[in-house]
Every structure is written in structure tokens, then in C-alpha cells.
């Protein structure tokens, strides 16, 4: 099984903890980097840490999720990286808009932590089974 690098862009501390906790329990060789918001994520990437998959929250300070998505998909050398949205919003327009702007997935954070853990496991498994256009 190949090793995947995830970049989680999330301003909420508990949310980052939730993701990492689920991740560490998976016991896989994948890595997780976190960024507090869009700007920090871009900085990380320009430093040369290019993730295989980006997980993106929508409600964030500074650069919000949609703005980051738009910006990112304009970058010729980055736009191939899949971005999966992780949010609480089930608003139809928002979902449509994210896919329109090039999102590769849209996962709603459920209330129950157990359910959340399930979804993240599925997410990781899904990408493990996908080919990644890594250079």
C-alpha cells in the first residue's frame, strides 16, 4: 500500500484533533499536515510540501474555503491535486458551487464523532484505491 500525504485545512482546533485521532487509529503509513487557513496552506505548498489530497473546511477566517478552492484551481501546476470539502453545510447551492469550482468530493461533518470517524475511514480507503497524479 502506497503512502499518501494529506493536507487538512481547518481553523478549528478540535476538528484538527478529531481528524488526527481518527487518522492515528487507522495505523497507516499516510501523513497529515495541517494548516489553519487558506493562506497558511498556500505558504506550506510554496515551501515545497505538495500533498496528494487536500481536505478543506469552508468556514474559515482570512481566506475561506471557496476562495481557496478558486485560487488553487487556477494554478496550472497545482490544480490536478484533488480537494475534498469537509463542512457542516448541507446547502444545495454551496455543494453545487464547490463541484463547479473543481472539488473532488464533499463530506458533511455529522454530529456524532463515531459517524465522523467512519466517514474519514471511508475517505482514506477511497483515496488509497485511487491513482494519484503525483509527480
Amino acid at each position, binding site marked *: 500500500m502506497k503512502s499518501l500525504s494529506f493536507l487538512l485545512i481547518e481553523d478549528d482546533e478540535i476538528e484538527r484533533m478529531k481528524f488526527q485521532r481518527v487518522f492515528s487509529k487507522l495505523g497507516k503509513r499516510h501523513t497529515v499536515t495541517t494548516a489553519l487557513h487558506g493562506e497558511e496552506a498556500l505558504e506550506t505548498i510554496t515551501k515545497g510540501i505538495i500533498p496528494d489530497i487536500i481536505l478543506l473546511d469552508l468556514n474559515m477566517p482570512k481566506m475561506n474555503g471557496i476562495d481557496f478552492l478558486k485560487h488553487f484551481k487556477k494554478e496550472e501546476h497545482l490544480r490536478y491535486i484533488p480537494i475534498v470539502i469537509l*463542512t457542516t453545510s448541507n446547502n444545495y447551492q454551496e455543494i453545487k458551487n464547490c463541484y463547479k469550482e473543481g472539488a473532488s468530493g464533499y463530506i458533511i*461533518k455529522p454530529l456524532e*464523532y463515531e459517524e465522523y470517524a467512519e466517514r474519514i475511514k471511508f475517505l482514506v480507503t477511497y483515496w488509497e484505491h485511487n491513482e494519484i497524479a503525483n509527480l
Partner: protein
Amino acid sequence: MTDKIEILQRALERERKARKQAESILEEKALELYELNKQLKSSNDTLTNLNQQQTSKLKGVFDSLVDAYILMDIKGNIIEMNTAAKKLFGYNIETEKINVVNLIYKEDIQYAMQSYTHLIKHGFFQNYNARIYTKSKHVKRVHINASLIYDSSGIPTAAQGIIRDITTETKKQEIFENQKQQLSIIVENSPVGIALTQNGTFIEFNKAFQQLLGYDTDELKKMTIKDVSFEEDFPSSAAYLKQLDAGTINRFTVSKRYLCKDQSIVWAKTSVGAVRDKNHNIQYQVAIVEDITEEYKQEQLKKQLLLDLEKSNNELNDFAHVISHDLKSPLRSMNALIYWLKEDYSKVLDENAKDILKKLTLKVSKMDALIGGVLDYSSIDKVQQRQENVNLQLLVNDIKKVIFIPKNITITIPRKLPTIFGDQYRLQQLFQNILNNAVSYIDKEKGIVEVSFSETNTHWEFQIKDNGIGIEKRHQEKIFEVFQSLEHSEHSTGIGLSIVKKIVAFYEGKIWLQSKVGKGTTFYFTIKKNS
């Protein structure tokens, strides 16, 4: 002696000669006279002929005159009448004698005498306009021009008159004047301004128009349309005016401003119509001007209010949306944290602590459901959903699988529910909330919820009947309000029925209920067809 005789003889001879000469002169003269006489006779004949000719010619002219002609002596006795005159008065001059005095309408006698005096004094009168009697005692209105006729020594011997029957004309004129007056009363008293213009200047206008602008008549007559208009409004009329000139339209209406004397501005609906001559060229323009300043202000106010409302509505929706999401996130954190407590400290926590954590989780769930409700409620009329045919039978059957139904309760559908036009999501919310409500308040051993329907031309009507606890009269109005639930229940957020009400309103329907405490409740609601 002989001398004397000689002298006498010579004298006699001279005398004879002289006589002979005289005779020959006389003869000559007689001949001349004869010739002259002959000439005279012939010219007299010619003259008589001529005279006869002229007389008959004149008679022909008189008879063929459309107007009546009368010749009378100085005392008013009629000597001659032409055909038209005979026809007008009904008398025949050849068989009866008439004096013009007998023809005068009694009320006009004084006026007639004045005119006669004028005739005698000045030799004529003109434009006499009065009434006369005909032989059959009908009254007619006539117009007369008359003049005196003099003999060779300058003494008036007769008078002649040309009479025109203007009875019909006068009547027509009267009707016309009447109508004109009526029309002018209407125009003058019209509450809308009316102005007649030519080449941009005011020709005529009514009181209302004048009052609208605040100018007096003389001021306004010196002014042009441009003087009371705003240049910014010209473009809106320009295209219409072109069409009016081209003859493709005869009338147009615009809303424009007018500048009043006191520099105030009046908004007016102005309807401009063209008055054309025989060649279809515009002779005048008629403008009908209606003050709509108040309406305009109201309209502007309405527009502003609507904008404000839309804005605050959007703000409210955005607010509900943002708040809901901001509230949702911490709840997810709380749920995770409680879970971690239980997971990481399962060995340390006693039963009481575990119970507290369980209750805490439930409260978090309740809070999440509330927020979800608010979000649903605020987005009912916001998001345009796909309209399609929705099979309600399938929809309700699906709901039965989704919601929690206690084992003692059954939902029955006696008659297969219709397929209606609407959006799946809203209709599901509608039925789900009502059914959820119904199954939540049943205290009977065997609970029954029945879904049925009927229809009118315009609406579908649905009935959802349960044998639950019922709703007291005093609560019946309140239950459709947001956050009103009859009792605190784990299942109820207090938003369900307000969502129902909002969806029904969205489909232009009504919702009401009948309930008996202890017996059960029936909810009724309608949905407009094809809305």
C-alpha cells in the same frame, strides 16, 4: 315805272330762288329726318328687343337663384317673387297680394322697423337676421340683404331683397354651440390637465392644467412645453414623437416631470395625441396630463421598502444560515470531546459520570436538531428547488421507513395518494413533520394515523387523522408558531409544524385542525394545483 316793275320782278325772282333753295334744303332735311327716323326706329326696336331679352334673362336668373328674391314697392307690397321666394314663403304673387309686414315674426317687429329705417336712410341693409312666418304659419329664420331702387330723378320707387333660409343652419349652429359649451364645461371641470399645443406652444388649456403648473392664462400662453419640462425627460418621449410625426401611432403615454411656477416639481402621466388635418399632417397635439406625484412618491417608497425588505430578508436568511453553521461546529466538537472522555477514561468513570455524559450528548443532539430546524425553516422559500411530479403514495411510504414509529402505532392510507406537481424535498418535509408530530403524541394502546385526501378544481386537500392526546383549544393557534411545542419532548424541536405551515403557504394553501382532547386530532391542509 318799269324800273319799279323790274325791281319788283327781280325781287320776285330772288324770292323764288330763295324759296326753291329753302325747299330743296327742306327736302334734304326731310330726307335726313326720314333717315334719322328710320334709324331711330330701328335702334328703338333693338333696344326694346334688348330690354326684353335682358328682362327674360334676369327672370331666368332670379328663378334659378337658390336664394329667395323679393321685389316690393316702397310701402312693402310685394311686386315680384322668384321661385325660391315662392317656395320659402308659400305665397303666389300672381294670385294674392302680400305686404312684407305680415311676414315679420311678431317678436322681431321692432328689429324689422329699425332695419327698414336704415334701408330708407342709407339705401340698403345687410345681414338682417330674424324670423318670418310662412303662409302656413311656420316660423323660419332668414338672412336678408336689401337695397332701394330709384327712378331717373333719384326718388326711391321700390326695394329688393335677397333672402336666405338659415333655419336648419341656425339650428345646427345652436346644437354645435351647445355641444361646444358642454364640451368646454367638461374640459374646464376635468380634474386632469388638458392642453392643446401647436409646434410646442400652448394654444389652449383647461383650469386643471393651469392650476397644476401654477401659471395664469396669459403667462402660460407665452410659454412653450420646453419651458415647463425637464431636458432629462426628453429622450423618453423622443422616440414616440418621431412615430407620431411619421403617423405610425396616434397617441402615446409617458410619465414625465413638470416644472411649476414656484419651482416645485410635479410628476405627471402625460398622454399625447395627434390632431391631424386632411393631409394627415399634425395640426395640434392634445396632452392629457394627470398629476401622479403622490402615486410616484408612493411607488418610490414601495420600491424602496421592497428593496429594504428584500435586503433585510436576505440578511436574515444569511444570518440564520451563518449562525446555524457557526453553532453546528461547536456541537460537533462537544460531541467528539464527550466521546473521547468516555473512550479515554472508561476505566475511571463510574456509572453516574457515564449517565451524565449520556445526558450531555442527548442535549447536544437536541441542540443540533433545533439548529437544523431553523436552517430548514429559513430556507423553505429561499432556495428554488426542482419542480416535478411527486408520487405522494411512494413519498409517504418512504417516510414511514425513515421516522421513528412506535410499535403500537400504524400509519394507514385508505385510498392511494395522488401524484402532484411540486418539489420532492419540500413535500417530504411537509408530510414528514406532520406524521412525526402525529405519531409522537399517541397515548392509546393501539395508535392509528390515517392519511387521506380530496380535491377541488384548484387545490388538493389532505387530512392526517390520529387518535392521540388531542390539542386543547387554547393551544390550537399557537402550535404553528416557531418554537412552540405542547410539551417538552425528546423528539420535538418546536419547529416542525411551523415548517409545515410555511411550506403550505409556499404552495398557496391553508392549514387548520380539528381536535378533541383525549380523542385525537385531524390536521387539514391544502396545496394549490400546478403551483
